[in-house]
């Protein structure tokens, strides 16, 4: 068994443990490359059955258009239930990424996620986070316990040994489960290639209209993006290394339009993938941990 086989086996084992032990699991599906790999692994883990849990997409209403069409197409092809959840209250208040900064992420993502988990009574939620992404993620267990307020307590994590996961919880508590904990960005792309996994076309370089803003190339995905004085969209050959809300996700100039080219680019990347996220920088070096403590994925 090679390296990818071992990673695959570990993830499948985790999926099956959750399905066997947890009452109401759900898979957080963010439509990105990690979610695509996670979904593929889930399909493999349970075949010939379908995965015994639904997918949940927290929609901030600011996702790239191509993400939503990809989501709907995949759900149809696979015959899998995708629950879309939008924080309607936030929507009514007009919360948006331009005027509300960190509050936007909190209300439209973190609060929305907590509301959805509570509404449907999910007891375990798979997330596609990887430990190589960011230094507070690097500290998190594969089975990450959340109290009734869905908060993470990094100082008292449940110890985890071998393949033995403690899934005991009381009503209201839940577990976030990260089957891709030990994968790296490069592993993800090599696996996408090996298994021929469909991903959103935004990952591949192509001429796209963008504006340069605070050091990021922001896609003009629809007419809701308010242009600042002096900003005019220009066409650049751009790809996205991560996907999220389009006003908060920077693209990079690239010619990588195949999976092979992306693998080569990833292997020699000078910066980490999270540099393309505008939101990670709000609140300094510990911002991710703060959000996670409050219930963010």
């Amino acid at each position, binding site marked *: *068994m090679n390296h990818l086989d*071992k990673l695959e086996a570990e993830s499948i084992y985790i999926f*099956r443990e959750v399905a066997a032990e947890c009452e109401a699991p759900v898979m957080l599906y963010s439509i990105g490359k990690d979610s695509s790999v996670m979904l593929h692994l889930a399909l493999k883990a349970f075949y*010939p059955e379908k995965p015994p849990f639904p997918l949940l997409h927290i929609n901030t209403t600011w996702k790239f258009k191509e993400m939503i069409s990809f989501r709907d197409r995949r759900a149809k092809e696979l015959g899998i239930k995708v629950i879309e959840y939008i924080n309607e209250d936030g929507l009514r208040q007009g919360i948006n990424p331009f005027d509300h900064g960190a509050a936007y992420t909190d209300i439209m993502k973190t609060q929305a996620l907590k509301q959805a988990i509570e509404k449907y009574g999910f007891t375990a939620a798979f997330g596609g986070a990887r430990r190589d992404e960011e230094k507070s993620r690097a*500290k998190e267990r594969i089975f990450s316990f959340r109290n009734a307020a869905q908060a993470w307590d990094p100082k008292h994590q449940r*110890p985890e040994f071998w393949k033995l996961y403690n899934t005991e919880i009381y009503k209201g508590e839940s577990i976030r489960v990260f089957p891709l*904990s*030990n994968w790296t960005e490069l592993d993800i792309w090599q696996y996408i290639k090996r298994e021929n996994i469909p991903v959103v076309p935004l990952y591949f370089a192509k001429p796209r209209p963008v504006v340069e803003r605070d050091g990021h190339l922001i896609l003009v995905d629809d007419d809701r993006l308010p242009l600042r004085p002096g900003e005019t969209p220009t066409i650049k050959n751009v790809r996205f290394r991560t996907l999220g809300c389009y006003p908060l996700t920077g693209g990079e100039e690239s010619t990588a339009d195949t999976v092979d080219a992306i693998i080569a680019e990833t292997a020699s990347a000078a910066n980490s993938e*999270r540099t393309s996220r505008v939101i990670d920088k709000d609140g300094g*070096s510990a911002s991710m941990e703060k959000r996670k403590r409050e219930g963010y994925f």
Partner: protein
Amino acid sequence: MKELLKFLTCGSVDDGKSTLIGRILYDAKLIFADQENALIMDSRVRTQTGELDYSLLLDGLMAEREQGITIDIAYRFFSTEKRSFIVADAPGHEEYTRNMAVGASFADLAVILLDAAHGIMPQTRRHFHICAMMGIRHFVFAVNKMDLVDYDADIFNELSSEIRELTRDYPSEAVIIPTSAKKGDNVTVPSASMPWYHGPALLQYLETVPTIQQPKAESFTMPVQRVCRSDGTFRGFQGEVFAGSICVGERIRVLPSKEEATVTRILCGAADMQTAERGSPVTIFLDREIDISRGCVLTQNDRLICSAVLQAELLWLDDEPLEIGRSYLLKAAAQKIPAVITKIKYKLDIESNTKTSGDSVHKNEIACCEIYTDTALVFDLFQNNRNLGGLILIDRVRHTTCACGMIRSHTSVSQNLSFHKTDLNRSFREQNLSQKAQTIWFTGLSGSGKSTLANALEKRLFLSGKATMLLDADNVRMGLNRDLGFTKEDRSENIRRLAETAKLMNDAGLIVLVSAISPRRVDRRMARSIIGSAFHEVYINTPLETCISRDVKGLYQKALRGEIRQFSGIDMAYEPPEHPDLIIDTTEVDVDKCVQQLLRAFFDDDAKTVRT
């Protein structure tokens, strides 16, 4: 594809673990530009001189940065031209030993750091022993901070012989390297400051050390994680091959039932396979219908053990100490079974590496214990296979992971025994007797009225046509338990035998009344876990003064004169039940009323009617 090495860095606090890893990543140019910029910025804020603090690359939690220590394991990923690595950076403080152990269970190799000026610290020994106990066979001792001892070869040589002494008794390989993580000596490249050292630099060694040897020929074993029922026409058994390999057409055995079947199909994902190797996640189909559920084990290994009694080395993790007789949830492979720790065989003093005796085990201590499981557990010994011989214990109320354990042996008595299913079980016998088998356990001080009440209740049940038996502890001590004295261990054993006897009688369909002082909560808890749901605890709460004034057997007078030692209520505590099923105070109420109370609490109308 490059080979992967998972390793752990550990050692005492401040010996420079996080700095070492940070240094490897930095020197080998394995960090991204944005991370390097963040490191430079953070270092400016946190150090006086602006000198790079490499530990900031790893200590990712706010509390860690605030306190300048490592609290939990950090996993870092890097890859050189020769190999891919995942490093688990462990905390050095004793308080966080459990987090260090999490890393040890993950790793194939451990890098243990020492401060050249301080030498082997208690935590150095502790970490080495935990790693060795958890099956790590490759060690690197990095004698760090050599710059602070002027790169002195004598100091290094002296420490090396102490390290050899420490590792002598273990079947492991240990390499010793003098380093300075801060200055970069022997971290990624050989140091010019230590020309007397001719071995490899740390990273060079990690890139070339032969990783895990292929496991020797072993037989197929796969615990069933879940049963897959696609459309009701077939059932597939999903799990990961933990040992050996399996081919379509081969016979397998199912444990614990010992039924046999032939493999007809193997799926890996959606692909049909002729054979599956160790480590593969598969779905296996069999040629006939057998009762198989999660936790069952499919195997070709005749030596796999199926026993309800085992011995394991436990590393205690919980803030609450280990409790003998308390029921924990034991998880091993895909099994989750209630289990009771019945005995602490010995404790391991990690600093001197000696076995000591003891009756309590606290957080971060190691003890070898005897464990009884409610139903037979299928396992292998830990040294043969960590996935089949490792276990965790979970607190049933607080849900904490209390301990991790390595199964070392199983008690010889049950080695060749298996539980024979008999055709007639308890419920048939109960039906035949028209009664529900149960055990009413009377606990309370000597003279509180236990035996009197048990006796009266039994007579009453007898008149209602019930089949009963009264076990009076004093009487049982004259026969079955005549070899037992009054030490703590003997008192526990006395209760255990009473409970096992009561359970056997319950199995025979009988209503059993046990009258025993049973002063210790842990012992009564053990009795409850042996007897199960048929157990009912009745606390005869008669005040001590009343008991002393009754003193039917004259024992209180003797105890008060000091002629009897360790007498409950006098010079040994009686621990009242916290949640008894019934409390009876005999001071004010007469025996008949008490019997009525008992009947109401535990028996249906049938038992209350006296047959004529």
